[in-house]
């Protein structure tokens, strides 16, 4: 019997569970950031496994920009109720009152409604560790991200000042006011995530599966008209198309792809034949060179 008898997925699973338990054991007030996406669901699934037969001893936190797909919110409420988990929902109320929206405020919108809102919520609840579902394979700037990512008291990330991580020994010592972001899925790839969802039959938001949805063409992507707040440009006419989403976020900023995949194996099939990386669907990445690195320095995931 050797390591080889534990498949790569089970090794990844064991590593992630180890990380989640380690954080719970060493931090006073952890929270799990719940974006409602597939990675979040895998992370939550691993947390359920980590503390079974108990429940994960931390709440979930969802930063609601108020522009998420309706189906995401419905799914969030259903799954947290079904699992009996506490889920804090936080919105940057001031910005909402000021009318900050993805149409008029471009890149600043994400800063204000996601990054700032997340910092507000973390500071308000005084969480000292926040689990996030980010993976290193998502984007080049994440290849060097640690599993424990340190943030100073103002939630800033300094790429030059991250701690070396050796073996399975994570250094969880922080000063008062400081916090960490923890990425238990660091070593998972997109294919691993789908494979695991398939293997474990993990529920995910139906938006990942293809369905007839009302979309418009905009800047080379398909944007779904999820509600009446969608501002149509001149000449834009919503049309019903079989589409699905590879990543989920705020609907006016998330591109759909033409697809007929209605099951996980079909999604994997599409993925294997796909020629563009997952983040292509995210409009925010294209704002500027090294966009993610900048966002990360500022406290966005």
């Amino acid at each position, binding site marked *: 019997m*050797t390591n*080889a008898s*534990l498949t790569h997925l089970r090794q990844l699973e*064991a590593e992630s569970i180890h990380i989640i*338990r380690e954080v719970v054991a060493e931090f006073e007030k952890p929270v799990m950031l719940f974006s409602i996406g597939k990675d979040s669901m895998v992370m939550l699934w691993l947390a359920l496994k980590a503390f079974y037969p108990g429940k994960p001893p931390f709440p979930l936190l969802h930063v609601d920009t108020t522009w998420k797909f309706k189906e995401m919110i419905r799914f969030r409420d259903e799954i947290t109720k079904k699992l009996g988990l506490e889920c804090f929902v936080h919105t940057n109320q001031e910005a909402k009152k000021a009318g900050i929206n993805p149409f008029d405020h471009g890149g600043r919108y994400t800063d204000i409604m996601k990054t700032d809102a997340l910092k507000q919520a973390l500071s308000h609840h005084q969480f000292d560790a926040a689990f996030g579902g980010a993976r290193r394979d998502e984007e080049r700037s994440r*290849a*060097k991200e640690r599993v424990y990512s340190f943030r100073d008291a103002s939630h800033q990330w300094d790429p030059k000042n991250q701690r070396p991580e050796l073996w399975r020994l994570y250094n969880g010592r922080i000063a008062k006011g400081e916090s960490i972001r923890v990425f238990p899925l660091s070593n998972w790839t997109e294919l691993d995530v789908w494979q695991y969802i398939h293997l474990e039959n993990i529920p995910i938001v139906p938006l990942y599966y293809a369905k007839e949805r009302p979309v418009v063409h905009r800047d080379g992507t398909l944007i779904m008209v999820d509600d009446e707040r969608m501002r149509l440009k001149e000449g834009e006419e919503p049309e019903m198309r079989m589409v699905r989403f590879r990543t989920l976020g705020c609907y006016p900023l998330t591109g759909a792809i033409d697809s007929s995949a209605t099951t996980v194996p079909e999604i994997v099939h599409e993925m*294997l*034949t796909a*020629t563009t990386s997952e983040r292509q669907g995210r409009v925010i990445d294209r704002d500027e060179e090294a966009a993610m690195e900048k966002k990360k320095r500022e406290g966005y995931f």
Partner: protein
Amino acid sequence: MAELSMDQILAFLDRHEKKGLLRFVTIGSVDDGKSTLIGRLLYESGGVFDDQVAAVTSKNAEGKEEINFANLTDGLQAEREQGITIDVAYRYSSTEKRKFIIADTPGHVQYTRNMATGASTADAAVILIDARLGVLQQSRRHAYIANLLGIPHLLVAVNKMDLVDYGEAEFNAIRDEFQSFCDKLDFDAVSFFPVSALEGDNIVKRSERTSWWDGRPLLAHLEELEVRGSAEAQLVYPIQHVIRPDLDFRGYAGTLAAGTVRPGDEVKVLPSGKTSKVERIVTYDGDLEQAFAPMSVVLTLEDEIDISRGDVITTVENDLHISRKIDATVVWMAEQRLEPGRQYMIKHTTNLVSGAFTEVHSRVDMDTLEDQPAETLALNDVGHVTLSLNRPLVLDTYRANHVAGSFIVIDRLSNVTVGAGMIRSHGEDYQADSATVARGLTPTERAARFGQKPCVVWMTGRSGVGKIVVARALERRLFDAGHAPYVLDAARTPSIDRHAQGEAFGPLVEHAAVLLEAGLLTVVTFTSPRREDRAKARELLGADARFLEVAFDAELATCRARLQALGRDPAEAEQAYESSVDPDLVIDGDELNIEREVDRLVRVLENVGAIGI
């Protein structure tokens, strides 16, 4: 792949699900073509999307489209600006047979820290050697560090073969020279590959241009090489977290560091040494018949034993050690040097303890790879040290078990990880030492902590003769020199008469005895008027400590005047007093030069060995 049927997809998922995992580290500098090699591996194994390739494709001088493989793997903005790789980057690729986690580490001299980090979790190391330059000192250093971190498989990619016309002689010369160096190290296997990362030779497919070579290409070797599992080793299960959802369930969550466990197995909990039987292996997916490393599970035991985070469940007969003293090889990772004697935090398995480096034995000269005498370690140094911990750890050598044999060193003030350690051996077992523990601390042990030996300076003489001023000055002098003195005078012990004698003298001696027991350099300034009492004190205290009688002598008028100045009754000086017969030191209270008298007292303390010279 677009024509795949659903059956083929399901078959693919099934195969992918059953794949094994190999973690390897790539070591080499930018000039060796390491980024190009990894870019090539990712590209050829389908780990790169078109948009990513497009982003790094440009027209070359002849107007031909060319993929810059090195740019596929570049990371942070800061590093792109500097044009060097400054940190460990993790890449992922997958073939039909295996998933790979690649730790990409820079190979410059100053980046031992990054290499050690990347190597710590690796099953194999790929080292690049530039075929034109041959074996450099840097190549030896890379192999040395890979070996230090216990990596079993070394793969040597002799790169840029295209620039030496794929010459067999060039390749063989490098192979023979490097193989003979590696023979001195401890790898399970060392293999060599003539490659060109730029041209793709022998990376994924065997190259026609090296027909003289009959090996497998690099990727095929990575797919096939055998990973040494630890499931057959003895059970090592460090407890991470106790799970108690309700009063009926008490489970111990952890990740198996080594070995296999089954319900019914007899186990021992360390460091307590209590034994029990495994009742259940609990998981979300149902109870298991067995669990093996590196699975994360929850165990329940048949008996109610007090177990908490940091304890280790192992077999009844085991080779683990419980010790407060470890000899280790440490890689220093911080700008601030290692400070012997200073307290650091040590994280080992799921334990966090404090401790100090009591000794730095040597550091490795990274040019000669030989040990040199050293007193400290600086950034990127590797050295041999002894650590003394404030509480014992359940440990093993790094060679026997990477989990139970490794630790990180954390700075208590900055909280930064400043070092990484691999246990070579350990001090005496804590259990074997239990007799010492039961006895408690001795005065000698306590005094040694303060750099002194148990000693009492018994000052005697009439009131007003000057004992207290001299005693206070001595106390200050000793304290400032790092010792632990204490002056026992009437002001500090109001319950004892300052002229106590006979029966009342007993409690004074008892007080002094407690201070000696605490390991303090004890100075007594009571009058002690009777010779017989002083002799009794010497007899009682002198058995376990040095006893110095210091006689103060002065004219009555001097004593009266001094008492008057202190606002005390001058008549006290005239109480009956029996002068000393054979004191260890006499101090003249008439011509009192405090500094000089303290010098004399210190000299006497040194002479009797109470304090070091």
